């Protein structure tokens, strides 16, 4: 689901009616659209003399194919490596010289660019952003140097991080057809083989203004910012819409298991169940299930696995909003010497209880109270507000969903939770990944093998 087309005129939102406990009237979000199709969300917030500016491009590893896995993320890096007006290194330098800083992230669905800066830097920031969105250069020397940076990022975050290395195997097993099969950072062999032309093609297709949404929150004047947006961003030409991702993952027909055998002191366990996209009606009841199972030390899984049976050091997981059906993850660090199979059995037992046994009214109320508190935590910083508005608008299809979240959680019933638990937490829908420690000599450690 795409964000609904916004109007060119002001669209003040009466959020107070959406939920009784969230006082949303203080968040006066404005919506605009440039002639080239770029949607803009604005929220003035004068609490600190600073601005958070987000550009969300609708491109991520989901849009890649074999041979160019990780290209979206690599492209994100290249966006800082020089354009027509501001050459290599000048983007970061100009920003820092003027009191700004930036970062960016790439997910399966999105590539997001973030700038934080004092209001005095607004014109410069728009000039910088327009320059790289319109006239990015792909200096072959920079491409090669940045390839090294990204390869090192992969080494750091995957190859020297057992947890993520296992997660990569889990996702590759859970998804056969859909591009969520490969990691956002890409396979190392693809990182080594991307071509400059791949980047050029990507730029034209996915960095068009009509494939992008801008969110700005902070100490600015809406009229002045819209003047800058019209001057700098509106002249960038729209492009034909990118080819939609049409692949859907076929229904899983039975449990899948993968092992990672390598040097490690402890085994590790990750279990994934296919779960719905953010816009699906089952997403919210599953969110309540995740509060009941995983949120805090009073959650069912913490209590059973960590506290009572003491078979795990930690238990973590949940769903995360995605454009296409993703996974509900359980990520468990077993205690030393505890057979992984025992941990897995206890997880299954707890999921079984949720499917057939009662959810107490107190558990449900706890989920509702937590949702309200979490909403306010999201709104603690201008950066948190910008990120939440942008991701809700793109991934849930409408930023109003951010303000509706506590109310939607409140509407979930005990029966809803049981229904989604029965629907998704089934053996056939499960993928299990186990890290099996291996001693340096190459011999698996018998006591920790599953």
């Amino acid at each position, binding site marked *: 689901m795409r964000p609904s087309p916004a109007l060119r005129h002001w669209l003040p939102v009466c959020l107070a009616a959406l939920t009784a406990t969230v*006082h949303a009237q203080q968040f006066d979000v404005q919506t605009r659209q440039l002639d080239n199709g770029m949607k803009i969300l604005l929220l003035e917030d004068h609490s*600190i*003399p*600073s601005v958070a500016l987000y550009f969300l491009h609708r491109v991520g590893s989901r849009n890649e194919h074999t041979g160019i896995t990780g290209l979206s993320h690599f492209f*994100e*890096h290249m966006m*800082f490596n020089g354009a027509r007006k501001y050459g290599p*290194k000048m983007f970061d*330098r100009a920003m*820092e010289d*003027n*009191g*700004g*800083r*930036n*970062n*960016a*992230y*790439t*997910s399966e669905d999105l590539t997001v660019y973030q700038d934080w800066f*004092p209001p005095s830097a607004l014109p410069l920031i728009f000039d910088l952003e327009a320059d790289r969105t319109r006239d990015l250069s792909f200096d072959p020397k920079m491409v090669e*140097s*940045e390839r*090294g*940076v990204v*390869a*090192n990022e992969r*080494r*750091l975050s995957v*190859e*020297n991080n*057992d947890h993520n290395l296992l997660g990569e195997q889990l996702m590759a097993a859970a998804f056969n057809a859909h591009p969520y099969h490969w990691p956002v*950072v890409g396979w190392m062999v693809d990182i080594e083989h991307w071509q400059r032309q791949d980047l050029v093609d990507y730029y034209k297709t996915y960095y068009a203004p009509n494939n992008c949404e801008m969110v700005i929150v902070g100490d600015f004047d809406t009229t002045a910012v819209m003047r800058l947006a019209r001057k700098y961003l509106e002249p960038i030409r729209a492009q034909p819409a990118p080819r939609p991702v049409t692949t859907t993952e076929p229904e899983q027909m039975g449990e899948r298991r993968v092992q990672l055998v*390598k040097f*490690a*002191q*402890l085994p590790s366990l990750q279990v994934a169940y296919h779960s719905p996209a953010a816009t699906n009606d089952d997403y919210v009841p599953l969110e309540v299930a995740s509060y009941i199972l995983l*949120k*805090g*030390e*009073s*959650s069912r899984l913490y209590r059973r696995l960590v*506290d009572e049976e*003491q078979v795990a*050091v*930690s238990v973590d997981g949940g769903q995360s909003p995605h454009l296409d059906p993703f996974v509900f993850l359980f990520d468990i*660090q077993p205690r*030393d010497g505890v057979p992984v199979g025992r941990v897995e059995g206890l997880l299954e037992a707890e999921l079984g209880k949720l499917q057939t046994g009662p959810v107490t009214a*107190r558990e449900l109320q*706890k989920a509702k*109270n*937590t949702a*309200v*508190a979490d909403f*306010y*935590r999201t709104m*603690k*910083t201008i*950066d948190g507000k910008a990120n939440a508005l942008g991701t809700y608008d793109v991934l849930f299809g409408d930023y109003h969903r951010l303000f509706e979240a506590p109310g939607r959680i409140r509407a979930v019933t005990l029966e809803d939770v049981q229904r989604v638990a029965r629907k998704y937490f089934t053996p056939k829908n499960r993928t299990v990944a186990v890290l099996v420690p291996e001693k*340096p000599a190459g011999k698996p450690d018998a006591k920790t093998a599953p």
Partner: protein
Amino acid sequence: MMIRHLLPAACLAVAALVPTRPATAGEPALRLPEYHPTKLENGITLLLVERPALPLITVHWVMRTGGATGDPAGQEGLASLTAGLLRKGTATRSAAQISDDLDFVGATLDAGAGLDRASGSCEFVKTDLDAVVDLLAETLTHPAFPADELTKLVRQSVDGIKEEKAVPGQVIGRYFMGALFGSHPYGRPVGGTETSLARVTREDVVRFYQERYAPNQMILAVAGDFSAPVMEARLRAAFGGWTARVAPPALLPAADPARGRRALIVAKPDATQMFFRFGNLGLAFTNPDRVPIEVVNTLFGGRFTSMLNSELRIQSGLTYGASSGFTPLRLPGPFAISSYTPNETAGRAMDLALETLKRLHEHGLTAEQLKSAKAYLKGLYPTQFETNDQIAATIAELELYGLDRTWIDTWFARIDAVTVADARRVIDRYYPLENLSFVFIGQAAVVEPVAKRLGLEARSKPIEDPGF
């Protein structure tokens, strides 16, 4: 999700400030929000900041005497376990009840030890004020320290260390502190080791608490949506009956800086990158040179375009990140340069890091560079001091180290005053070239030749050996 860069982990921890809107056009003045330190009758220092923007409240507590420098040698982790057990049972509630009561209202409650203090934070929606403050006070004034909860926490912590050792970036700091500070209390791993934790008994925890937790050593900093007189009355009701007294923290001698060059090699047979960190003693929290150092370090290793990140990442692609940072403590804490690189480029990256340090000394910094760093820092500050949590933690830290609000309220003026000569002076004084303590984590066959070529006197240990 992949992130473009990780902010340097060890950049200067500066105190919080709240920019106020300028009366006239121009740069914002920076002042902490209004607060008036007061004391309850039992000695608790109260710092209350009214911030009504969201219906949230953060209570941040500091126990001056609760830090890990109080751990007996061989029982590293005792201060951490004591702080961690506060919420694991009180005179009237079990650990499970406490978790349930907190989670039911969506409140958070964390506690832990640092070297110089124990501290904790509690955040909640304002409508739950009475219940949450009573619960927090109960955990601090009447903890029960159940023996089975200690056993659980020890086992989890021991396995937690083994898990962390699978990710070199999570543990290299502890190896570095051990290598740099040696037997000085700052060299003790705050979270303990695989063996030291197991030596802690319930009696040790109870004694540590009785000797080190008392209202006369406590700071309560509260920020959020409340009225100060109401909050003060609430805190008096919850904490006022606590009458214990303990002696102030012992004064420690400063550590000796590293002399010459020496290295610790931590062998990790599956590493495809070599992680390195090197440095020496840095500076104390109250050192007035923190301001010029912050300006200099921004340029050397504190921001994305810093000299270190430019050389090792932007120009050469040898790493995903290179940085330098100071950790100010009561006594001089560590200064360190850190990065990581593929096994194949270990020697080259190491050389480049040292050459960059040498270049800082040879070329110094220009007025233009200083101007950029000052603008960067001043632009950055507002977002670092935006939330209740940031404000409460900051004013509590000022109080802990005996500073007042002028430390912050003059920060911008002091940044503006930094000259090229100041930069030269702090480079000479705080960025050692020859006296350096190194830590490497990686495959022995990769690291050993690097250490040898640098002429380092090195000792080695496998990463799976207990301790750091």
